[in-house]
Every structure is written in C-alpha cells, then in structure tokens.
C-alpha cells in the first residue's frame, strides 16, 4: 500500500474523529446542559489526537527506515565486505539495493550480495506492512483516547488553542532551522576547504586561479585561492551600482512622492517597478552587447584603455537594475512621513525643497537606509550581469575600466560542469559562499544598527 493511501486513511479517520468528538461532547453535556467549550472544539481536539501523532510517526518512519534497514543488512554481511573502506561499502550497498529492485548493478553479483539483496527486500516489505499497521493503530488509538477524555468540564478550547500555538512554533522553527542547516552545511564544506588550503591564503592571497590538476598524472596549474581579487571585484561593481542607483532612485522617489500629480504617480511607479521584474540575464546581454562596447568605444575616443568587458559596464547596468529597490522603498517611507511634519515646516516659511531636505528625508532616513542596504545585498549577490559583462578574469584592481570578476561568478564557474566534490577547487565555492554570507550579514547588522540609532533619536 503506497504511502499516500496511508495518509488518505489518516485523513478519513480524522474526519470521523472530528465528528465523533463533537457528538460525544453533545452527549456528555446533554444531561447537565453544561459544556466548557463549544462542541466543535471537542471535535477538533479528537481530530488532532487522531491525526498528528500518526502523521508524526509516519514521517519519522519514512525518514529513518532506509538507514535502519541498510544497517541491519550491513551487520549481516560477511566480514570480508564489512572490513572494506567506506567508499567500497557504499558501492556494495548500492549493488544490493539495485539488485533488490531489479536495476542494473555494477558487474557480476556474488552469492553473498544476492542473499543480502533478498534480505533487504524482505525487510523492506516488512517495514511497509508494519508502517501501515502501526500508523493506523496510532491514529485509532489516539482518537479513542481523546474521545474518552471528553467530559463537560474538559477545557477543549484552551487545549486546542495551545496545540495550535505549538504547531505555529514548529512551523517557524522549520524556517529557522532550515537556514541554520544551510549555513552549517556550507560552513562544514568550507572547513574541509580550509583543511587543504590555509585560511590565510584564502583571506589575504591576492591571486585567484582555481584550476588544479584533476588527476595526479596530469600537468596543470597548482591553483591559487586568494579571495582578495574577487572581493574587491564584488565591492567595486556593487559600489558603481550603488553610485548609480542611490541618487537616481532616491531622487525619483522624492519626485514621485512629493511633486508628481497623483495620476502621473499611478502610472510612473509601476513602470519603475517593472525594472525589477526584468530577468537579470536580459540585463546581462544588454550590458555585454550594448553598454560594454559603448564604454569601450567612447573610452577609446578619449584615449583611455578600456577592456571589452569592464567593471563599469556591469556596475552601470546593475545600478539600473537595483533602482527600483531604492526608489520603491524610499517612496513608501517618504509617503509614510506624516503630513503634519510638512505642514509644520511649510508653516514656518520653509520652501518645499527645504522641507524635503531638512524634515522629510531625515524622518524617512531609517527606511531609506533599509532600501539602500537591500539594494546593496542584491548587488553583491548578483551574478548574471557580471558573468556576461565584467568577465572572468580575477584582476586585483580598482580601475572600473578593467575587467574584474566577483565572488558569485566564481562560485558559478567552480561548480558548473563535471566536478570532483572533494577537490579544493570545488570546495572553494563553499568557502566563497560563506564569505559572501558573512559580508551580507555584516551589512545587515550595520543597517539594523543605523536604523535603531535613528529610532532612538527620533521617536
């Protein structure tokens, strides 16, 4: 019986449980005409006890069954096999599984493995049956126990409230735990990288050339993993992008919220926000095919040496891309500044622009800073535009006319194609990932700090 039949059965039982819970509540209260909560709370209480424990056991079972079965099978294998190293055992187990399920195996199957496969198959079907029986038993048992607890004085309403709160807590912890899990897994891979490459080389090295020999007999560069060129490249491009986006975004936000008529605003704001909806790859080829050649040509006219892929091209286009992040958020916070503050300033004889500069913008500053930092983390994390317009050359430079590369671009190039997952080249991606994460984290902490400081001063 496939798993979803079990789930359906539990749901069916739950419906029945709800019904009986309600009915029982009505029955037990019929004589005294007194019931602590409304009848449907007793229904919900019974339904919860019928479904949640059963579903929890189901999930746990499915999560653990394959590991447990595999372990049992391994324990029964002859010691000739169990003494092998981990990788070989993994291979054997794969063979067992594949053989058991009738798929292709790696070469001839020995008698021992065939026996193990049979064992495996038996255990698996046993586990299936046990699962169905046990889970349904739990559902029925849970429902009945809940039914038996129902009495006129039983506080079903409060109990259900608490259970719901518990469920909400669990859901939010899932989000948090997932984040922690991702960070930790990246961190562990990064640590494996630092086992092979000293962290000082990574942090302070000024050369980045991750190509290493894949096989020992291959001739190849030995690899250099200094992240400094990548970080400067990232910061350079983000800086150029912010240089474009912050003034333009802020000014257009001010125009839209303070000067534009309601009709113009209703048209212009959505159009501006479309900028954020353009796929970055479109920006990318716009940058690579239009902006970069334009910059190279006009640089050439001025007698400047401009490489055909430049940080400037990528930064400018990225700046256009993040304008809406700045403008839309700033527009919202500027609109949220109370009209009474503007009236106060105008009423004292300040002009419109003095009012904006000295009252509206300072009052809106925490929100604007938030928008800018959001745009900044977007710029730091942006990949596509940089791949296409800024090149792959890890030059250590702050000259915007040179080609540079960024952390995200290198992560991509390290991980695309066939990779060996324990070479420093691949693991370097995780080290870069964790550094990127740390940079954005620091940025966010600073942002929060600024915002909080203003709050204290101004509220």
């Amino acid at each position, binding site marked *: 019986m496939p798993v979803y039949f079990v789930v359906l059965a539990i749901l069916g039982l739950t419906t029945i449980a709800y019904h009986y819970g309600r009915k029982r509540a009505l029955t037990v209260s019929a004589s005294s005409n007194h019931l602590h909560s409304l009848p449907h709370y007793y229904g919900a209480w019974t339904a919860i006890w019928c479904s949640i424990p059963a579903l929890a056991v189901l999930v746990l079972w499915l999560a653990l069954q394959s590991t447990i079965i595999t372990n049992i099978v391994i324990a029964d294998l002859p010691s000739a096999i169990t003494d092998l190293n981990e990788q070989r055992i993994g291979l054997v187990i794969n063979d067992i599984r594949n053989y058991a399920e009738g798929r292709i195996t790696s070469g001839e199957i020995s008698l021992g493995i065939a026996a193990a496969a049979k064992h495996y198959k038996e255990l698996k079907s046993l586990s299936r049956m046990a699962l169905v029986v046990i889970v349904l038993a739990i559902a029925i048992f849970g429902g009945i126990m809940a039914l038996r607890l129902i009495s006129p004085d039983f506080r079903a309403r409060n109990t259900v409230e608490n259970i719901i709160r518990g469920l909400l807590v669990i859901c939010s912890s899932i989000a948090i735990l997932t984040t922690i899990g991702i960070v930790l897994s990246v961190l562990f891979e990064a640590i494996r990288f630092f086992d092979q490459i000293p962290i000082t080389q990574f942090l302070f090295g000024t050369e980045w050339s991750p190509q290493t020999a894949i096989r020992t007999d291959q001739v190849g560069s030995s690899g250099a993993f200094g992240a400094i060129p990548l970080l400067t490249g990232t910061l350079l491009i983000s800086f150029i992008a912010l240089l474009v986006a912050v003034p333009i975004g802020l000014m257009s936000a001010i125009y839209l919220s303070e000067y534009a008529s309601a009709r113009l605003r209703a048209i212009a704001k959505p159009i501006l926000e479309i900028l954020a909806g353009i796929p970055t790859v479109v920006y990318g080829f716009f940058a690579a095919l239009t902006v970069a050649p334009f910059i190279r040509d006009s640089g050439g006219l001025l007698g400047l040496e401009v490489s055909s892929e430049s940080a400037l091209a990528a930064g400018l286009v990225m700046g256009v891309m993040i304008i809406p992040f700045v403008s839309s958020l700033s527009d919202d916070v500027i609109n949220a500044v109370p009209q009474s503050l503007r009236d106060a300033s105008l009423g004292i004889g*300040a002009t419109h622009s003095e009012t904006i500069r000295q*009252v509206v913008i300072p009052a809106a500053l925490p929100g604007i800073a938030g928008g800018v930092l959001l745009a900044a983390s977007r710029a730091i994390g942006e990949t596509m535009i940089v791949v296409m317009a800024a090149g792959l050359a890890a030059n250590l430079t702050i000259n915007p006319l040179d080609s540079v590369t960024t952390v995200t671009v290198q992560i991509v190039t390290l991980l695309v194609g066939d990779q060996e997952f324990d070479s420093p080249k691949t693991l370097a991606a995780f080290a870069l990932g964790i550094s990127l994460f740390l940079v954005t984290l620091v940025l966010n902490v600073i942002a929060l700090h600024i915002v909080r400081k203003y709050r204290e001063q101004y509220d």
Partner: protein
Amino acid sequence: MSKANIYAIENPVTHQPGWIGSRVQEGSENTASPYATVGNIAVPNPRMSARSVNVFYDEKQAINNVSLDIGLNEVISMIGPSGCGKSTFLRCLNRMNDTIDICRVEGEITLQDENIYSKSMDAVLLRARVGMVFQKPNPFPKSIYDNIAYGPKIHGLARSRSELNEIVETSLAKAGLWDEVKDRLTKPGTGLSGGQQQRLCIARAIAVSPEVILMDEPCSALDPIATARVEELIDELRQNYTIAIVTHSMQQAARVSQRTAYFHLGNLVEVGETNDIFTNPKHPLTEAYITGRFG
C-alpha cells in the same frame, strides 16, 4: 431644532442700522450670494484684513464671502460647528491652502496693507510673518534645540552660533518652556509631554518673529492642565503678537480672546466683542450655538 430649520431662518437682524460691517458690500462682484455678517467686522488699524473671501475645494464652496479684520495685538477667536470652515479660513491667512492642489481662494486679504495674494508676495516669506500652530502638536523628529533653530536657520536670522543660541533661549522662554527643557536641549522634541510639545511648537513659531500667529484648535489634543498653561501663554503673547485662534471650546474663546467670530456653514454669521457675543448674541444661529442647542 434641526439644522435645516436653523439654516432656513433669514437674517432677522441684518437690517439693523449700524451693525452691518459697512465694507462688506464694497466692490462685491463675487458670484456667491452675499451673506451679511452681524456685528462690526472692521477694527481701526487692523493688522490683517480679509475682504469678500471665497474658498473652494474643487467645486465645493467652503467659505462664502467672508470679510473680517484682525486687530493689532488682539486675540480673535473663531468658533462654530465642525466643518463650518474655520480652519479653511485660518489657512487662507498664511496661504497654507496653497499646498492643497484642489483649493482655490478668491477675494482680498491684506497684511499691513499688503495684499498677500498679489504676485509680488512670496507665500514662503509670508508664512514667516504669519506663523501657525496646528491642532496636533507636530514637533520635528529633531532635538528640542533644532526644532526652534529650524526657522531662524532657514531665514538666516542668526549670524553666529551665539545669536542662534539666544534666539532659541528667548523663544523657549517666551513660550514658558525654557526652565523645563534647558537641561535637555539636545534631547528629541518628540520626547516631551503633549502640552510641552505644543508649547515647543509655539516657541518654534515665535522663533522667526512673526507678526501674526494663527492657532488651529491648539489645545484640542491636550489635557486640562496643559490647556490652562497654553491659554496663559496666549494671554502673555498678546503683548507682542496678533493671534487668531480657532477653538471648539466656547469657554476657551471666552477666556483668551477679545473678539469672537462665529462661523456657520462657510458663512461668517456674527462677530463682536467676546463679552457681547457670549452674553448677548444678536443672531439666532449664534445664540443657538452658544447656548448649546447644536454644535
């Protein structure tokens, strides 16, 4: 008595000789029906004077042919049921209505014989001469010091830091707030109590040395004690400033003002000495309002 009935009453006293503002009819080419105000709208030597003012929000008329003088160093209060146009009229006096797109003002308003709606008058500079205090205290989210220094800085009233300090101190002192805040000038103005905030706003208005101060229900968000404190302050300020105050409290009008103007549905119904208005209202609408039959 319902509102409709009150409105249906024709002015029974408009034809009493001597009571009609004599200048109302002068040059009245306005399209709106003339409404004759009871009482003397004119004073000798007025600081501001409004003649035949009509105000429209889009097509809706909010002020109908109002003429009124505001005398030198007097406190004039404007009372009337809500929505009758008191705030609208007050905001005409410093052209704050300019900031509302749909608002249109007709008629003539002068400040010291200068037409404030003429082309040569800069609305921004006018607002430095005719200051305003709003219904809800609205200090800037800045320090107490910066709240007061804001106006003088914008208008370049202080040439040095010490001059600015002096302006801040005297303004706060005139608003009766100096002793309470002198040790916390760098603290945010929004951290003060409601009454203190309103006095801070008054000090902020005073700091640019206006000739007239307009107050739109300045005490409606304050508790009785803070209200009493602000009323005292208004009385003191009368020595140096002309004050027009909108209030919904008749007791307040009686306590602080020398003259009172009663507005009803965009019309200026009656104006006169505060004592007269409250003890001996001439117009039935005024009487109905101050005896509390509607409001």
